[in-house]
């Protein structure tokens, strides 16, 4: 059981994969790390906001592993990783909209966005796209109904309970509140092409 009492479900995802739905309150990154240690390199493991995907093993075997691991890895907080500080120009096209939507001034939005130390919960959507958790609950806003066809590279954005920086110019549905020069993805960086990996911490500073 997860801490809030909801059942952890292992859902078949085709014949050779499973989606572990942790509900609220459990740490997908910790479970993913524990499964990776058990299952090795032949299986693809993708932690996300509330789930862990295991691609390459059928659901019954995945469920057996999850049962054997028990509650401990689901409750352990991720430790280690680096802390990265990112300078932001808070002048995004959705900054005023966000302030109005949240009933705050623009200055209050910037203060609320720069206060926390965020943790990269997982990456997805694009190489180097790090979903950062720890967003001030006052700044939780929905995605746009229709994504922009092109979001500038380096855009600092928020949607639902996460904040992120777009690594390159792609379509995007998040609310854009600023821009940074941080290079989120660089293949020239060798073994660590992503600037922010799961477990790393991030702070934003206004410039």
């Amino acid at each position, binding site marked *: 059981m997860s801490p809030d009492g909801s059942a952890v479900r292992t859902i078949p995802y085709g014949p050779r994969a499973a989606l572990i739905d942790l509900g609220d309150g459990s740490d997908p990154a910790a479970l993913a790390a524990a499964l990776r240690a058990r299952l090795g390199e032949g299986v693809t493991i993708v932690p996300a906001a509330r789930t862990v995907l295991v691609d390459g093993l059928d659901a*019954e075997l995945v*469920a057996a592993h999850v049962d054997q691991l028990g509650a401990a890895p689901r409750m352990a907080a991720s430790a280690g990783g680096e802390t990265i500080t990112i300078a932001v120009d808070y002048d995004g096209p959705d900054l005023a909209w966000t302030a109005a939507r949240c009933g705050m001034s623009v200055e209050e939005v910037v203060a609320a966005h720069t206060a926390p130390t965020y943790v990269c919960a997982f990456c997805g959507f694009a190489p180097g*796209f790090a979903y950062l958790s720890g967003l001030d609950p006052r700044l939780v806003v929905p995605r746009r109904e229709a994504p922009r066809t092109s979001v500038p590279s380096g855009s600092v954005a928020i949607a639902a309970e996460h904040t992120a920086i777009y690594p390159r110019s792609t379509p995007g549905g998040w609310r854009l509140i600023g821009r940074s020069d941080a290079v989120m993805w660089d293949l020239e960086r060798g073994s660590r092409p*992503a600037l922010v990996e799961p477990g790393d911490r991030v702070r934003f500073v206004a410039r």
Partner: protein
Amino acid sequence: MTSLTVLATGPLATVQDLGRRGWAHVGVGSSGAADVPAHRLANRLVGNPPDAATIEITLGGFACRCSAATLVAVTGAPCTISVDRGLPLAVGQAAALGAGTTLRLGTPPTGLRSYLAVRGGVDAIAVLGSRSTDTLSGIGPPPLRAGDLLMVGPEPGTPVPTDLAPPAPPLDVVRVWPGPRLDWFEPTAASTLVTSAWTLGADSDRVGARLAGTVLTRARREELPSEGLVAGAIQVPPDGRPVVMLADHPVTGGYPVIAVVDPDDLWSVAQARPGDVLRFKWRRGLHAAAPQSR
């Protein structure tokens, strides 16, 4: 060292192998050949290992000249294959080409993607462990252009096979399994999925096969937190038009997955061309309970 000079590419020609594994945690998708069995067969016909890189050719039109004597094979969508010296080649059969021979593929009358294997493999630069072109992220070699010079890998030292493999016709019906978010949809959606005729949209690509048909209605309207995707997952965005995830699908997505194409049938979706009609059937009873963890 043997090389291929690209003379023409058709609408899209990319280098593909069996994909990029082990980088999902930083958002890098697996990519790789869209029709995996056709890619594997092309390699087998020339005596390559299965993970050698081939050229994936969309709607034919590819042409190249080989610098030295080489063995090639084309599988997948049945293009005509002409050479400037000798008789036309057949899809599904290895053929020896003399030095300087020009090979030219026509437009296939059916199917979408053909695979050209050369003995030794296409020796493009590997990025993060794979030579595949990921058209979503841009990782890997850029799409091929006329004038490109492709190096061919060394002689593999394997026996030269004498297989002949006629092209497989596309499947009449594609098998699907229940998706992890089937319960996010109205009960009628499950039967709509397998009774509708789905038309492949012209906006389909290596990322996904976009289908038009009866709108699939959601029962739950809230946002789904992003979660991992597998190839073959059938995602349904707010407009109700399903998308089948193909080789260049993103690692995560926030639209509910109603069903998953059986991995052994996904090649048939990858061979559908715009305007083709797809049909699905459930691979397994809807009433099979998901395994529960304590």
